[in-house]
């Protein structure tokens, strides 16, 4: 029982630091609130989906980055999807990075 509550506390701390460091935002809390006894694994399911989907997107993005000249429209479109997903799960930092990336796309800034 002791171990259990210790682990719980650790998890709680980790969770809090993700918020503090700006990795997660309020939207993540919304997800947590959608979880209940009838749907106990909702957050886990969504996050798992997110990782799988993001991995796919990132692979596509990397491929696109290897091409030359760069297809900024395509990249922007991938980023739009990535940003959307990240925003929906409360991935604040990733969302910000995506936004930045898109700025570069729009400016045609390949270096960025």
């Amino acid at each position, binding site marked *: 029982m002791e171990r259990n509550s210790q682990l719980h506390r650790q998890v709680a701390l980790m969770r809090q630091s993700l918020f503090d460091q700006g990795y997660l935002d309020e939207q993540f809390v*919304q997800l947590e609130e*959608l979880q209940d006894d009838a749907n106990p694994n909702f957050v886990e399911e*969504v996050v798992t*989906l997110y990782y799988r989907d993001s991995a796919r997107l990132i692979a596509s993005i990397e491929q696109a980055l290897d091409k030359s000249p760069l297809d900024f429209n395509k990249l922007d479109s991938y980023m739009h*999807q990535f940003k*959307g997903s990240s*925003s*929906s799960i409360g991935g604040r930092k990733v969302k910000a990075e995506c936004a930045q990336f898109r700025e570069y796309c729009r400016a045609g800034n390949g270096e960025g």
Partner: protein
Amino acid sequence: MGMAAAESRFHVLAVDDNIIDRKLIERLLKTSSYQVTTVDSGSKALEFLGLHEDDRSNSGSPSILTNNHHQELEVNLIITDYCMPGMTGYDLLKKIKESSSLRDIPVVIMSSENVPARISRCLEEGAEEFFLKPVRKSDLNRLRPHVMKAVSKDQKQEKHEEEEEEEKQEEKEIKSQKHQEQQQQQHQQQLSPRPSGNSKRKAMEENLSPDRTRPRYSDIAAVV
């Protein structure tokens, strides 16, 4: 047939190309006690709505996409993402409003981008609401009034039709019963005047009015 599925459970069709958003909107809607079907494109949405139309006229059509229920499902609201490849949410909205069978279904648009021109264009085209993503539970409260309005309009129409039919039926029954009653009244008077006979008649007459004519029919037979 085609009535709002029993216990005021409304059915929402959610359209979004993003899998995370689909999962999220599905959970949100279910939490608010809606029945949900999700599709990942505008064309699939139209397919669902089009095939679904056939469901009503001839049951027993093949199950479609995510919908595995084999019951009469009406779509009471459509919520769709704006930015989708191929057919955008706006295109879908237009197609729905152009269809005589679908145009009464309330449509809500969602978007991650806050573009005023986009919002007003959608509202002008007939969208009921425009939600900014990510959609939250509190946003869903804004859906209720639109769903209720559309459903009550349907119910009023159906009720009107039903009532008309019922009235016709009742008129027929009342006529035939009155005829029978008259015959029996004459018969009773011939036998012996009974005080209870009057009250019985009163009771029968009272019950003839609203809708419970059928049980009385058997009672009259018992009197004889």
